[in-house]
């Protein structure tokens, strides 16, 4: 080990992401709870509305993207919470990798987590709400990826901050949810257009907001991340 040069930013990020995913894969604690939470919420949302008054196609987009943010938060606060035990974060910070690589690695692991939950939650919503999934699947996957990138960028940064506070995981939703408005709103509106059988071009205004949010906040959060660590 000692003879090798430290890995570059991308290689280090990949290593950190692999470490986090390995922990998650062996314990499966957060992933399982996020999946069970999503399924429960899908079922509860359906019964909370009168299905004869509101058609399930109108209900589904809102349900899908609200569940997406809350299950995302379940995974996100684990991201740095897991480093608090035995102060593992200190070992990570003294290792010869850039702070940006730590952010990128954490964000990649979180992205895999959120997309993994979505891969099960979207078919579950389609099943329970009788959605014509095959017709809208390709654009829906695109929206899910765009939404997940923005959610993970902001969430990873705030997770790092929240883990160091007295409130810990209680603080994350308070800080992060206002920032998820420009993600949930475009995603839900675009999904609603698609499910209503409208062409995606009708939702271009929403998609532009989503893409711009991703670009601005991925850059801003990566730049801001070192400030949440140094001492």
């Amino acid at each position, binding site marked *: 080990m000692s003879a090798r040069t430290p890995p570059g930013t991308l290689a280090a990020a990949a290593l950190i992401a692999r470490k986090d995913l390995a922990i998650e894969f062996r314990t499966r604690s957060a992933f399982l709870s996020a999946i069970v939470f999503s399924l429960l919420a899908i079922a509860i949302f359906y019964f909370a509305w009168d299905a004869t008054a509101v058609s399930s196609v109108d209900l589904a987009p809102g349900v899908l993207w609200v569940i997406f943010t809350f299950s995302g938060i379940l995974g996100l606060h684990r991201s740095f919470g897991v480093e608090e035990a035995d*102060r593992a974060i*200190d070992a990570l*910070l*003294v290792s010869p990798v850039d702070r940006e690589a730590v952010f990128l690695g954490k964000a990649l692991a979180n992205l895999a987590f959120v997309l993994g939950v979505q891969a099960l939650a979207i078919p579950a919503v389609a099943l329970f709400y009788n959605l014509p999934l095959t017709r809208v699947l390709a654009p829906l996957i695109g929206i899910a990826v765009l939404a997940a990138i923005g959610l993970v960028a*902001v969430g990873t*940064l705030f997770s790092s*901050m929240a883990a*160091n*506070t*007295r*409130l810990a995981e209680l*603080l994350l939703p*308070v*800080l992060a*949810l*206002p*920032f998820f*408005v*420009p993600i949930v*709103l*475009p995603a839900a*509106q675009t999904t609603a257009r698609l499910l209503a059988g409208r062409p995606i071009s009708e939702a271009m*205004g*929403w998609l532009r*907001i989503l893409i*711009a*949010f991703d670009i*601005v*906040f991925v850059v*801003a*959060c990566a730049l*801001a991340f070192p*400030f*949440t*660590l*140094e*001492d």
Partner: protein
Amino acid sequence: MTTSSKPEERSGIDWFLTIAVLAVAATFVRAIFFTPVEARQGAAQKIFYVHAPSAFIGLYVAFGIVAVAGALYLWLRDERLDRVAASSAEVGVMYLTVVLITGPLWGRPIWGTWWTWDARLTLTLFLWFVFLGYLILRGAVEDHGTRARYSAVLGVLGALLVPFIHLSVYLFRTLHPMPIVLKPGRPSLPNSMLATFAMSFVSFSLLFLALLRARYRLAARADALVAEEEVESSPVPNLRAEPVR
């Protein structure tokens, strides 16, 4: 603890704050008794002289100061900048709360509804949430340096968030009146109302500055007190501090 350590800090009346409060009171008197009643809205329109200046100061001035002072703090690491940001956030929450209370009071008789998910109302509400998150975050961090860095990061990101929330909610139909003073061409207020509005704007700005100054002084004294206690209580390096990274 002896109380005689810093007698010179026992200042008397805060004259700036007194003048600001008197100016606001004078504005109310002028708005209520010496400004014509609006033809269609009647007396309800008078709430404009509280609502509009509070909204401008809370949304743009207070939030701008939080974001700019935060960004400058991350660069210069001057704890005075952190105090300015924190004070501005606290006073800003108060102004936005006034906006969110007077808005529904005005909307009910004029629009026929307390609340509507209009672009500006939604933006104000979410900025209020960001401000509250900012204050909760500050309350949840013990260490001064960490607290300053975290809140600065949140302040800067909050400023980046504003245009996105604005764009998102703008795609919904808007009910709120468009600007009537700061718009191209002449303001559409008659001169007597414009004078009252200008007066309310100045007096509310004065009150903002006075409260900001008072809150800043309080923060400075609290920090000085904590620093004093730390020196007194720990002749050896503070053992409770986090491990050095």
